[in-house]
């Protein structure tokens, strides 16, 4: 579905992504884990067209999307839930959802958009209660739901999620992750998930990649990564403490 080949991305002179290659299959949940500053968000922003890679190729469903502008890439069926939610605070929840469907036009689109809004309310009942409220006045977890629902309103084939658990209470985090799993199971949405919360991400993902200072270091099934000693030590906090005595 999505294939990245030898992607190199720079911020000015800083080489952020170094020969990153990965692939995501139809209907998979794939996690990308790594520390702060490893290049996780840059990787998502490169896929979304917010930063252009200096070299390499990105293709989605067979068509080359390298270097396309961000709004074109949404039309290609890739939608991102950005880090820190980035919802439209002064607009109502409903307006945020409607803007999510901004690029869906044509005959019958209005009806399908209304159906999808109903679907979002079903998935996140809290948003239905608060549909007329300004999105900026919602709690962090609710804002994250708005961000996910807004991204889904473009009816994407591939959903990119940047740190959906950031700054949220553990209970809200599991609610969000359950919603993501349900998306894949019920709507066959492919999900690429970036997380610092590696344990949570690998619990729901089918496969994972580990990124360190801009390079992909490990890849494999979630089970494999959870059992890999290197990954455990660096990201899962299962370091065996030396005993002094």
């Amino acid at each position, binding site marked *: 579905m999505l294939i990245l080949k030898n992607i190199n991305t720079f911020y000015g002179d800083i080489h952020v992504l170094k020969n990153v290659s990965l692939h995501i299959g139809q209907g998979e949940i794939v996690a990308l884990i790594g520390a702060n500053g490893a290049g996780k968000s840059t990787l998502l922003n490169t896929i*979304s*067209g*917010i930063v252009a890679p200096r070299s390499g190729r990105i293709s989605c469903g067979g068509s080359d999307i390298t270097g396309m*502008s*961000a*709004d074109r890439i*949404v*039309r290609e069926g890739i*939608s*991102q839930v*950005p880090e820190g939610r*980035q*919802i*439209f*605070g*002064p*607009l109502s929840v409903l*307006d945020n959802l*409607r*803007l*999510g469907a*901004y*690029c869906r036009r044509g005959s019958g689109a209005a009806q399908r958009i209304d159906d999808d809004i109903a679907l979002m309310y079903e998935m996140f009942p809290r948003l239905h209660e608060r549909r007329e409220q*300004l999105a*900026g006045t919602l709690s962090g977890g609710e804002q994250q739901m708005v961000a996910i629902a*807004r*991204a889904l*309103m*473009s009816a994407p084939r591939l959903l990119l999620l940047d740190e959906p658990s950031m700054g949220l209470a553990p209970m809200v985090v599991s609610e969000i992750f359950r919603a993501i799993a349900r998306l894949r199971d019920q709507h066959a949405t492919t999900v690429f998930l970036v997380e610092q919360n590696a344990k949570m991400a690998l619990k729901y993902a089918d496969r994972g990649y580990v990124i360190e200072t801009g390079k992909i270091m490990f890849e494999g099934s979630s089970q494999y990564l959870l059992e890999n000693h290197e990954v455990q030590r660096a990201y899962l906090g299962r370091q065996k403490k030396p005993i002094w005595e």
Partner: protein
Amino acid sequence: MSLLSQIIQFLFTGLTIGSIYAMVGLGFNIIYNATGIINFAQGEFVMLGGMVMVWLTTAFNLPLPAGFLLSVLIVTCIGAAFERLAIFPLKKPPVLILIIITLAGSIIFKGAAMLLWGKQTYSLPHFSGEEPLHLLGATILPQALWIIGILMAVVALLAFFFNFTIPGKAMRACSVNPVAASLVGINVKRIVLLSFAMSAGIGAAAGIAFTPIVLMEFDRGALLGLKGFCAAVLGGLGNGTGAVIAGLLIGVLESFGAGFISSEYKDAIALGVLLIVLLVRPSGLMGSREAARLKEF
């Protein structure tokens, strides 16, 4: 003339000129919200509106309604062309550079207007005659009511556009967060184009309505732009309601200052009020409410 009729007279004069400032201020805000730019060519759109209208009605004998619509359309296209030629081709330009470009644009518009129409002043017939209306001893020109009416129409159209249409909401989304807007598929560059076109159109409407009572010439844009900028800043940059209230306020203060003190001090009064308000409330009159903090238009 009694004091009451004088006050009413000055009030109406002030509201008339204030409506123009308000429309120019709205133009500043639309572009500022979409791009973060202060468009220093804003006053030139007002001048161009008046000049194009004069040209269309004298050279082609167009009737007033057709001339009005066509002039607004032409200046709207000029605004759009300005964006496409001067702003659009730049890749990730800093805001300061963009502002300097708009300054250059204003000089070019002014120069072009001088070459096309010369340095003389032009006038237009009043929209519906010059027979003044009398209200408690004050005389009010019908044109003044036209100007106030056009401001109200512009405000109503903008309110509808920003609150009830998807492109309007998309424009607000761009002003809140351009990156997130592009992530939902909004073409931010096209929104910038739309903002320039709309600002130019509103400026042109103001210029056409204003020309019959003040005369228009090639270099009138700068001062109108400055007053409109005062309205935008005084109201809280980016706040539409603020710009309208502040524009009317500046117009009324100017008019009372000119009437009761001296017309020499007209501009000083407006700028003095701006300075004092900004010293006390740097965010402008409407700039600190919670909605404004969330960067509401």
